[in-house]
């Protein structure tokens, strides 16, 4: 698929989402679509690392929390506009991502996972412990001011909804561009066989770090959108359970297909919300669903479809 076609499809998709949300005029639909946009973006951003670079981060929520808190705190100063605060937040994310990433990517496999977890919990304990700044367990209180900018008033739920969808879809397109670029394929080489990639002249460590930072930036952006949506920021945003949820999302949907994380985010939210509505024993139901997917399918939903599609292709005979 060409970039232009994707852009058009993305625009159509965003337009459809917005049309559905606005035309139904139903707040519930808007709510659901916003959360799905945000979590899809979080899952997509994580998949840059897990699916494309082969680095399993257990600490991805640190970027989500980082974005939400930095942005929220900046806005609460009442001295800065929303786009400026978002820009500063993303810049800060770059720095934090580069520092933590430079350390994390020195390790591989489970050790990488644990180090990302450690960094995340470090951030979490700062958020939870620095009560005077962050409000501790109560989160940022008093709401996040949303002064209008460029004629956009995000205090209006419908405008916030439109913006969230547009930002998410644009980010998804950007992530798509990154993973389909020569750089994205270099990441795939690292994932598939880092040793071989190195032997073909790919600067493996540098690219890993770049992937870590990029993934962090989009994770942080998802956090910013979330803080606007709930008008606050909570320590849970940086807690490892959210990292776990993000991992579940991408594993549910599939890590080898670009839209797998999106489907996963949708499935996960659906399971979470729906099971919660119908039974108090949502833990058991969710647990069983997870077991069925992990032990039954052994892959995410889209992974299974992709595998099936590929396996149907005629295989060539051995070289003549």
């Amino acid at each position, binding site marked *: 698929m060409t970039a232009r076609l994707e852009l058009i499809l993305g625009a159509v998709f965003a337009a459809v989402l917005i049309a559905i949300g606005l035309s139904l005029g139903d707040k519930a639909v808007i709510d659901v679509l916003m959360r799905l946009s945000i979590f899809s973006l979080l899952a997509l951003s994580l998949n840059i690392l897990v699916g494309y670079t082969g680095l399993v981060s257990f600490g991805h929520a640190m970027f989500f929390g980082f974005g939400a808190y930095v942005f929220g705190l900046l806005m609460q100063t009442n001295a800065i506009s929303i786009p400026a605060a978002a820009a500063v937040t993303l810049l800060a994310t770059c720095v934090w991502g580069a520092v933590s990433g430079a350390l994390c990517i020195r390790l591989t496999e489970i050790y990488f996972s644990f180090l990302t977890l450690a960094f995340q919990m470090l951030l979490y304990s700062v958020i939870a412990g620095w009560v005077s700044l962050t409000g501790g*367990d109560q989160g940022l209180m008093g709401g996040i001011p949303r002064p209008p900018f460029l004629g956009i008033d995000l205090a209006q739920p419908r405008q916030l909804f439109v913006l969230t969808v547009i930002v998410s879809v644009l980010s998804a397109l950007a992530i798509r561009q990154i993973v389909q670029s020569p750089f994205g394929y270099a990441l795939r080489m690292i994932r598939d066989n880092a040793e071989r990639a190195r032997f073909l002249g790919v600067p493996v460590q540098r690219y890993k770090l770049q992937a870590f930072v990029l993934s962090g930036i989009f994770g942080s952006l998802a956090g910013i959108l979330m803080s606007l949506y709930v008008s*606050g920021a*909570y320590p849970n945003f940086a807690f490892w359970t959210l990292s776990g949820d993000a991992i579940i999302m991408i594993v549910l949907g599939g890590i080898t297909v670009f839209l797998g994380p999106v489907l996963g985010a949708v499935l996960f939210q*659906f399971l979470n919300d729906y099971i919660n509505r119908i039974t*108090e024993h949502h833990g058991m139901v969710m647990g069983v669903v997870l077991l069925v997917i992990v032990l039954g399918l052994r892959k995410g939903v889209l992974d299974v479809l992709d595998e099936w599609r590929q396996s149907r292709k005629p295989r060539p005979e051995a070289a003549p």
Partner: protein
Amino acid sequence: MTAISRTGLNRRTLMAGAAAGVLAAPHVSRGQGKEPIKIGMPTVLSGRFTVVGDSARGAAGLAIDAFNAAGGLDGRMIELVARDDKARPDEAARVVRELLNADGCHLLISSSTTAGAFAIQEVVRETGHLCIQTISETSSLTADPKIRLPNVFRGARQVVHDAIAGASYAAKVAKERGLKKWMTNSPDFAYGRDATGQFVESLKKIAPDTTIIGEAWPKFMAPDYTESLTQVLTSKPDALFTAHSGGDIVAFMDQAKLYNIFDKVPMFTPNLADLTSIKQIKKLPPDVRSGTRYLATYPDTAANHDWHDAYVKRNGGEPSNWSWETAAGTAFLLEAIKKTKSIDGKVLAEALRGMTIDSPFGIGGKLTMRAEDQTLINYAIGWGSVLAEPPYLKNIQDTDWSEIFHYETEWKKSKGFI
């Protein structure tokens, strides 16, 4: 048939779910009669605080059953939709939005713990729905004008009230017994910090010769207090204040028992005289003073005994502090509905401001929703010595609400709230 429903999984729901996929489409379950009035209740129904949700749901259900049995609002029944917020603020915000937007709830009883309560506050700030907070006792929720909302009322006790009541009682005991050096040991989260800070502040005012010689802030929900208990041993205070509650205070005392800390050091806590906590304490130290949380015998009135028995009959377990708070909040809401025959949030809010109702939990059988800050006052609050056996608290000294008001005003001024 109870009025509590978990939004029945009917065919329509399933089909809507299938058709709309993840868009959990709004579905209003239409019964035979009139459309019910739906009250959404975000609360904790899983994990370590399940007891909170169970208490709150049981209490609200009891009140709503009675309301419906009496014919509802001109034949319109009330349906309570309780949903798990997993004690997470972000999930609480989501659940509230879902209750309002997808389930079409008209009113809210928020029985979330403090962090969730503040998150819900932010949602209803936006949506404007009427909401009764029944679990969070954190003072700023209604005391701080920046956080307070015209559409949110607190049907729960308030930390600053408890703190003043506790400090007033503690000051008297301190004078009698010469308890000068105090230590605190409380969980490091909003309620714990609040309850402890305001107690200390009030104590210093009421009994200026007391000093705080040490404080410990175990992580909230930390299962282990050993290191902070041994700190008590080392510091040798005259008395100790703690704001642990629920299972934590039981663990705290079990662990303290191992060091015999409270053999010599009297312990003060607002949270022990509660049926769900005190019954779990297997060995009670000799000198423990507690505020009343919920006891069937305090206030020692027929109304309270009857309520207790009705609760136990309907829900099985003993009611807790969270039960009476939710019962009180629900009673205000139902009374306002009855009185105004409306479910319009603005109309109800107007009626609630300053409303006084008959209640087993009030001083002299009356509870008041104070107009100025939309919070509950005049509930029965007293301190006494904890007993291992019923009635669990002896020598209860009722707190004089005028004293509470006096120091509360001072406190509000010091915070710049008024």
